[in-house]
């Protein structure tokens, strides 16, 4: 019996979590005619564009310089001419600044790449700077700048790095394919991360609905120092950071603390592969694997260049097979809906899922019947039904006291609720309000 966490749900359990159409499809390279690269692809202040309309850029050239503590550089993902620098409507409420590049199909790389070579022998103090320089942020969806995770403060230490290959979200097979096709790269990235902080233990955690990936990663990890593969039970949100740490190490991250406080760093497998590219080849993060599925004619996994438009990649899948009702970037439980198919894909976009009009139907909220399914499903142990009343009453104080800030916004309660109560959206909103109020108080 594999260890697991309390609560959780099994979305789309009857249809292999929606992964069946793409899990056996090998990754195809896709290079678009134009890309629109957003400056705000990571958590933290958006970068500042450092190219102008008409400039010619090469692949890997810095086109945005980092701003602030959580800042990251942004790189050109194709070679060609900059045809626009300006506001672009992405997933956010307001447009962000994006750089649009027209491909000249030379695929010419910049000259100043600095490969560090073998991850086992390269100077370890150069690893974290290389990660920062490559513009790597969490590629599982959270887009937190990766180098910041390695900022070990006085009194802290890290003894375990966990690679998250759970891919517990529905529909997505990007990490699955990466683990099958690039398993050695992932282990290289893990080893680089481990060496950077002198960590002795690296654990690659994978849900047991991907036995082939477990097998491939075991093979790749064989003979590597301190690296092991850990199968996990298939259950959502198995890949949630807090759940993963608890299941793998038995430790709980105390409330308002970070994984490093329990001596753990969690990285997505995609992030690990990007670290390997940055360290071994000195190459920045300019492409990633994305699953395009749902109501498209030929659901596929692609290695896309950052900044590819959703419209283009859907076209590459043979277009829509039905009139689209909703396009979600990411899985069904935490993915973001797109306002149109003319949105650029960012570093953390692991999937594009097209829903038909029937699946996109607006749900109506009905009265809570106190069935307790949300309480049972909450992986954190909260009382979602009660929190919802506090959110409806806009009672920030009471909601904080009921531990709403511990909510991980996984969506399990909303998924399971028979009355379709809008639980998770209300909690996300309330958390934002409480954070904003606290910031205002601090001044």
């Amino acid at each position: 019996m594999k260890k697991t966490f309390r609560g959780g749900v099994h979305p789309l359990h009857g249809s292999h979590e929606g992964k069946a159409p793409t899990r056996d499809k090998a990754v195809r390279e896709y290079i678009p005619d134009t890309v629109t690269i957003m400056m705000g692809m990571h958590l933290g202040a958006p970068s500042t564009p450092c190219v102008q309309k008409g400039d010619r850029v090469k692949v890997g050239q810095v086109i945005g310089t980092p701003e602030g503590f959580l800042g990251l550089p942004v790189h050109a993902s194709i070679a060609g001419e900059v045809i626009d620098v300006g506001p672009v409507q992405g997933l956010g409420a307001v447009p962000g600044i994006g750089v649009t590049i027209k491909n000249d199909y030379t695929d010419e790389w910049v000259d100043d790449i600095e490969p560090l070579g073998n991850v086992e022998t390269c100077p370890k103090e150069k690893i974290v700077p290389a990660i920062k320089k490559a513009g790597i942020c969490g590629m599982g969806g959270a887009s937190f700048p990766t180098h910041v995770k390695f900022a070990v403060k006085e009194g802290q230490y890290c003894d375990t790095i966990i690679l998250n290959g759970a891919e517990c979200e529905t529909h997505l097979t990007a990490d699955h394919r990466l683990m099958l096709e690039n398993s050695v790269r992932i282990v290289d990235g893990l080893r680089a991360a481990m060496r950077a902080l002198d960590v002795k233990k690296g654990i690659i955690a994978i849900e047991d609905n991907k036995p082939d990936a477990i097998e491939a990663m075991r093979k790749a990890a064989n003979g590597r120092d301190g690296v092991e593969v850990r199968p996990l039970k298939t259950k959502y949100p198995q890949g949630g950071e807090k759940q993963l740490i608890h299941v793998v190490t038995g430790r709980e991250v105390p409330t308002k603390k970070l994984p490093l406080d329990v001596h753990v760093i969690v990285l997505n497998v995609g992030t690990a592969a990007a670290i390997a590219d940055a360290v071994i080849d000195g190459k920045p993060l300019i492409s990633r694997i994305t699953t395009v599925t749902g109501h498209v004619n030929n659901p596929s996994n692609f290695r896309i260049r950052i900044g590819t438009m959703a419209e283009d990649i859907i076209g590459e899948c043979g277009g829509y097979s039905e009139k689209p009702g909703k396009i979600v970037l990411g899985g069904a439980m935490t993915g973001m809906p797109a306002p149109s198919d003319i949105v650029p894909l960012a570093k953390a976009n692991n999937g594009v899922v097209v829903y038909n009009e029937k699946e996109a139907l607006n749900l109506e909220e009905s009265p809570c019947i106190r069935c307790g399914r949300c309480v049972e499903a909450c992986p954190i142990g909260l009382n979602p039904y009660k929190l919802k009343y506090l959110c409806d009453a806009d009672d920030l104080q009471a909601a904080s006291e009921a531990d709403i800030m511990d909510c991980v916004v996984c969506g399990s309660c909303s998924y399971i609720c028979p009355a379709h109560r809008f639980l998770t959206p209300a909690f996300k909103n309330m958390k934002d309000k409480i954070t904003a109020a606290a910031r205002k108080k601090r001044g």
Partner: protein
Amino acid sequence: MNLFLSSAPHVHSPQTTRVLMRNVLIALAPCAGAAIWYFGYSALILMAIATATAVFAELIWQMLTGQKVRIDDLSAAVTGLLVGLNLQPQAPWWLAVIGSLFAIIIVKCLFGGLGDNFMNPALAARGVLLASWPVRMTSWVLPTGWNSYADAVTGATPLASPGSFTLKDLLLGNIPGTMGEVCKVAILVGLLFLLVTKTISWRIPVCVVATTFVFSWLFGNDPVVSILSGGLLFAAVFMATDYVTCPMTDKGQYIYAVGVGLLIAVIRNFGNYPEGATYAILLMNIATPLIDRFTKNRVYGHERKVKKENG
């Protein structure tokens, strides 16, 4: 392109309120069938009257008060059918009407409708009818077959005169009693359906029955006859498991179920009533908010909370 925007999650469990209530109705069907088999057309008519009254009462209430009409969630139908199944088969028709009206209007709608009632509406109605018309509610008849009034013979329930029925009669339902409670096999079929469809968990029905079993035995009764007599099994499966009025957490449900089982055994042994399930569950319904407060799950990353809240 006109795309729909909404917050995650973008998929939902197919188990909606309506599906859950429909499951309960399906699970009640064997009991209703058994009642008609044993007690004839009067059983059918009483159940129909009770159900129709409940649904119409909710419809009219929601229309008069300007609320959205939600009778299609089937919760009123469940309540109505439960009121009907809690009557004795030759109860007068107006008892069914009063019972359903009380359940829907007084217990459910006046307290805010679905989800806000503090007691199980059908059981509260049964409690009121039992207190107001005790003779009409407990004039038990032996099963008569289809022709309800042909040769109705009054009799005592197995609880009032234990030992007068065989185990087979107790199981199959060839005994006097309320329409829903007589046929234990039908109740168990319903329970099985509810468990397989994950409409309810095993915790409450199993713990209620087990607790009554143990305490009946401690009090010196035949525990097997005890759990097969009266309304215990029906109440444990269909009444104690009402979502609205039972606790939320596993731990709370164990406490609640043991409380119900214990109270049933106590009332049956030391009370005036031979039957205890109704009042036992109603009492524990009232204790539910308290149980909920003391059985919260520990929040991840927190030490177990000692005492923090006031309210």
